[in-house]
């Protein structure tokens, strides 16, 4: 009996059951085996790069939030680092530690979401609920620090928006305790679970050479055995002073990627705890006699009490932007052409007022010298690069974001070829495709 080898085209997408977003896979199937795949992306193209050309330097920061929207603080830091490299400024140490702390908390949230969503698609709904509960504690921390849960816009060119609130390190430690418990529970539920291992062990295998040929970085590359991490290879901010391990797999399959991400969650929490031990003290505990409430301070200004204005500082919560004179030097660079002055100076002296106007007025604004810079940070998925081109005006000429998840998506046809339909779910979940970053 002759066998007719006929293949069947099946369309998976562009609307997937929740969580993944919008991707279209055109599968050529022979029974349940995948003969070939074509991946079609671009369903969430939102013109980030075009919008960045018409926004001022600081106004691009909210647009970067929406790139990898599960770890927005990493995108904020990456973009601001690229602009600062071009402008030639280094931010004060406390600001650098704050960027590292916020990036690592965001990275934990990213990995929790990835593992939770992919476990849910394989049927482990409990794991999803436990990890999203753990992520909720982190969202509350990010809310305390930046003012928003998801779209944070925390960094500015020259530093960060504001300092961390009172009692933040204790809240973080308490939250990490709960996150560690949730991760340990999920570890018990999944790692030696026969059903889970049958689905992810040995599926979606990629070799080291192929991963490098596709330019894959991040946990995907580390699962194949290459210990490349941008925080180690090109240390930025204060990562060279921090002690952390880079988990590496060996087989390059979905199980190794799951283990890499779980191990990275623990390493990120270690980094944040070390940061709290090393961070230089901030100056927000001032003597009560030196401070006046902000509305009193403004009244003094309206009445022209200039001598009193120089003597006192305004009492403003340190998480509000534009806070006290002293502590701004910890989190924002001293370069007056790049950052807004403290509110005491804005309301209290004409030089401060002029400085404030010049940094925010349309077509004035902060000016970055002409040139180009490329800076990469370690995002949740790998090397997240920003290539900034400036012609010396108040807005970027070109902003290019190098998306780390484009590379495993381009390798997806190779990963899926010869596998079963059921493997698509496991492999696609471990890619951690974030459409905001992929399509920009």
């Amino acid at each position, binding site marked *: 009996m002759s066998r007719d080898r006929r293949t069947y085209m099946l369309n998976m997408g562009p609307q997937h059951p929740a969580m993944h977003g919008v991707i279209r896979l055109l599968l050529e199937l022979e029974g349940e085996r995948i003969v070939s795949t074509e991946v079609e992306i671009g369903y969430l193209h939102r013109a980030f790069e075009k919008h960045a050309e018409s926004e001022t330097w600081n106004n691009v920061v909210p647009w970067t939030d929406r790139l990898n929207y599960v770890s927005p603080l990493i995108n904020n830091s990456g973009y601001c680092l690229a602009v600062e490299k071009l402008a030639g400024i280094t931010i004060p140490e406390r600001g650098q530690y704050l960027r590292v702390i916020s990036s690592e908390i965001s990275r934990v949230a990213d990995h929790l979401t990835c593992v939770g969503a992919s476990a849910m698609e394989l049927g482990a709904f409990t794991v999803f609920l436990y990890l999203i509960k753990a992520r909720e504690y982190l969202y509350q921390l990010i809310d305390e620090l930046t003012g928003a849960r998801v779209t944070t816009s925390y960094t500015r060119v020259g530093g960060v928006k504001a300092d961390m609130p009172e009692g933040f390190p204790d809240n973080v430690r308490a939250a990490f305790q709960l996150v560690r418990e949730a991760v340990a529970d999920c570890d018990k539920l999944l790692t030696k679970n026969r059903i889970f291992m049958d689905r992810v062990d040995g599926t979606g295998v990629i070799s080291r050479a192929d991963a490098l040929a596709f330019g894959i970085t991040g946990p995907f590359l580390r699962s194949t055995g290459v210990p490349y991490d941008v925080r180690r290879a090109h240390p930025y901010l204060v990562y060279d002073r921090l002690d952390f391990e880079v988990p590496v797999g060996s087989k390059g399959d979905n199980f190794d990627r799951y283990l890499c991400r779980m191990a990275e969650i623990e390493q990120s929490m270690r980094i944040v705890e070390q940061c709290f031990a090393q961070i230089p003290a901030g100056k927000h505990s001032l003597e009560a006699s030196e401070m006046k409430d902000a509305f009193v301070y403004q009244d003094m200004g309206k009445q022209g009490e200039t001598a009193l204005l120089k003597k006192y500082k305004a009492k403003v919560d340190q998480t509000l932007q534009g806070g006290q004179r002293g502590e701004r030097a910890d989190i924002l660079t001293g370069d007056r052409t790049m950052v807004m002055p403290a509110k005491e100076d804005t309301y209290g002296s004409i030089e401060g007022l002029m400085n404030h106007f010049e940094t925010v007025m349309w077509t004035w604004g902060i000016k970055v010298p002409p040139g180009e810079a490329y800076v990469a940070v370690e995002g949740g998925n790998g090397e997240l690069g920003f290539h900034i081109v400036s012609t010396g005006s108040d807005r970027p000429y*070109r902003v290019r974001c190098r998306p780390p998840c*484009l590379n495993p998506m381009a390798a997806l046809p190779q990963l899926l070829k010869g596998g079963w339909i059921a493997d698509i779910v496991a492999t696609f979940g471990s890619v951690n495709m974030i459409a905001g970053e992929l399509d920009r």
Partner: protein
Amino acid sequence: MMNSQTRRVGAAEVFEALQTLKHEGYNVLMDLTAIDWSAAGAQAPGARRFEVVYRLAKIDPDTGNDNGRVEVRCFVNDSSAELRSAARLWPIADWLEREVWDMFGIRFADRPGIKRLLLYESFEGHPLCKDYPIAKRQPLIGPAAGEPANNPSFNSAAPTVKYE
């Protein structure tokens, strides 16, 4: 932070330069992008409109060290396919070139066909070029740009959506 050398080559020599660099050990094509210099006036660095940037890295597979980065830059005009595709050197170049074609309209030679990556095929124009207005919409469905929105929300008896 990362420092990379920059090499400027002519459009015809790009493929050979990339091939030589690959033999020298640059095993990863990190990024491939383009810049449209037409709105930069006096600051435009060359006589031609676009500059294409290839970013390569040398990653050691055993230690994970980054042993060097290099940027290869060349100037092109959009209309002719001057650059030879790098897809046979690094497979990721296929998608990156499709994105450069989609956004800028720069063609690449020596590749089977090129189609858009991020936008739909019926889209006309290349949006990241400086002469494409950002809010010029080409909807597939729904009111076209400029038409008054006869909102289906308020007019369920006669919806305006023509759906094929």
